[in-house]
């Protein structure tokens, strides 16, 4: 074999590999960095970055990925609400997403907002959104390429269902658990000091509640406990065991909450998509519950509002 023909063969093999991208394991809610790399040019895959910090996407993102700004694209900026079905539809149409597209989300901070994006997408009918396991952190640590070009895709005509998926808990659902005897587990994913009521919120946070503490009956599982050091999720077995240790085993429905409902969607993703439990995320969370009139709270550290 001459050097030239060897080169040709290598090229042909590479082209063949690129031309037949690996299919995502439909059952898994996660895709690996390797899978994403192989599918960067796959027209049936659309990757979105949802990062907490501004400017992260622009300074380098996974080639071909589009940017979703969580504080403008995925929320209703006037109502305290997530983006409407029409709003998300417009975003997806512009991004060229069709019914056959595999949507992959990823972001910084251990996929915190990417998981929230997955919850928003799921509510509006895109139920099989996948997260890049490890998010930006893992991608960068692997030395995989980043791009600064902003891609544009031919628009699609995707039509989202009007009916929202039942994965969002409201205050009445939570009160049904606290006072109405509904057999549902509550998982508070904030830090232990917030959970106990020792502090209202982490340093520098503006959105607060009148009282500190947690919803009676909730168990505490800080959200970052679900990820490994390298940013990837812990194994299914480890996650299952960690939650079982605090009495969350999927035998009954679960409601997750935090302070404003975003970090808890990360735990919603773990419990619902990875472990397959029945879970709703309560995005009103502590800022709504702790400010509500006439609802009971649990405040083990004794910092109840009004007590000096």
């Amino acid at each position: 074999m001459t050097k030239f023909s060897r080169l040709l063969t290598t090229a042909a093999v590479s082209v063949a590999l690129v031309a037949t991208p690996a299919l995502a394991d439909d059952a898994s809610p996660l895709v690996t960095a390797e899978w994403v790399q192989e599918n960067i040019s796959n027209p049936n895959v659309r990757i979105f970055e949802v990062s907490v910090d501004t400017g992260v996407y622009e300074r380098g993102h996974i080639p071909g990925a589009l940017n979703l700004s969580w504080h403008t694209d995925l929320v209703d900026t006037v109502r305290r609400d997530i983006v409407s079905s029409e709003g998300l539809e417009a975003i997806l149409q512009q991004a060229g997403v069709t019914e056959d597209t595999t949507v992959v989300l990823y972001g910084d901070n251990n996929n915190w907002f990417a998981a929230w994006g997955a919850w928003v997408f799921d509510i509006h009918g895109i139920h099989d959104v996948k997260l890049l396991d490890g998010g930006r952190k893992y991608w960068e640590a692997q030395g995989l390429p980043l791009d600064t070009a902003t891609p544009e895709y031919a628009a699609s005509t995707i039509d989202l269902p009007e009916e929202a998926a039942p994965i969002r808990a409201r205050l009445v659902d939570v009160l049904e658990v606290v006072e109405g005897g509904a057999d549902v587990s509550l998982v508070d994913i904030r830090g232990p000091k917030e959970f106990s009521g020792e502090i209202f919120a982490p340093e520098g946070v503006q959105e607060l509640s009148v009282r500190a503490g947690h919803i009676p009956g909730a168990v505490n599982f800080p959200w970052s406990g679900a990820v490994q050091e390298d940013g990837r999720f812990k194994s299914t077995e480890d996650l299952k065991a960690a939650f079982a240790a605090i009495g969350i085993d999927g035998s009954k429905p679960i409601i997750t909450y935090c302070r404003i409902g975003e970090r808890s969607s990360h735990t919603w993703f773990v419990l619902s998509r990875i472990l397959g439990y029945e879970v709703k995320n309560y995005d009103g969370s502590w800022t709504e519950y702790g400010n509500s009139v006439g609802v009971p709270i649990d405040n083990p550290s004794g910092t109840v509002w009004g007590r000096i």
Partner: protein
Amino acid sequence: MTLSPSRYLVPLIAATVLIWGFVSLNSAGVESRPLALSLVLGTAFGIVLQRSRFCFLCNFRDLIEKRQAGGIIAILVALAVGAIGYTTIFGAWLPTPALERLPPTAHIGPVSITLAIASTVFGIGMAISGSCLSAHFYRLSEGSVISPFAIIGAFFGFGIGFLTWNSLFLAVTTNAFIGWIPHHLGYAGGLTLTLVLLGALAIGALLWAKPQATEAEAALTLETGVRNLFFKRWPAIISGTLVGIISTLAYLRVAPLGVTAELGSLARTAGTAGGIVPSSLFGLDTLRGCATIIKETLLSNNGLFVLGIIGGSFFTSFIAGQFKPRRLKGSDVARGLVGGVLLGWGSMTALGCTVGVLLSGIQAGSLSGWVFLVFMCLGILLTWRLARVFRISL
């Protein structure tokens, strides 16, 4: 030229520390890479500032008092090159310049009476202390006896700025507006206007200046090349171009240039811990600017950038034999502290300084940068005028 051991020992130590810092940060994982890059950019910035004497006040003074335009031309070139660089990046990141969505992290700050007052006070602080903050950082390496006190003063000035922030914000800043030129004229129109304004200022400066006789340039040899690089002041066009390039690269990779964020966050952290600074500063964390960053970690991009400025300038200053401290006088301490407090208060209230608001702002097409420029100059001229009236030498 004196040949003391410190002339080569200090640069050697500075270079060793900077290289060690870069290597250890760069090998500490993904999250530390921007820190390593900030250190490199700061070092480059410090070297350019020191080698070209890129000091806003000194250059302004050269123009007004000595009628030399070189330094001001360097600043205008830096603004022009950076404006071209920023516009190129904006076009890629944000194809449509709409006001609803500003380019991420660019210093496009609010325009208000507060900004005008703060810029004027900053200018007064410059005139009293003899430099702006970025120049004080590099002038440490030249043995300036005022600079250390000015930086200490600025730290306290920041604290006072945090104390007065809420009332000023409620009085004025809430009615402020964001003036982003590309939003009104598009990228091409905005850049054209910026370049025309800078060109007009350059023409004005050159018309006002007296022609300087330049020495004939020696033939380029290794020896003259080394002399040009390490011992002679770098030419205005070159230093301005380099500052513009560093600005652009910093914005592309890390954040817009600024030198006050770290000092401000240290002051805020200390003030909050001491219960002096209000724990809640209205709107501050939602506004765009250099001085609005909350300190979270020991090492920050801005902190390393400033350390780079100091390290880089120590490297070049000692080689060039420009470390020339003079005997400290009481008036130096007073000028440093008083000027520094005004610099700190001004830059906190304006959300940045000559680098964070003026340089990064004008380059980004922000009206706030121009407002800062105008009122800073007014503050300087006002102070010089009063100093003449009261026969105080500054």
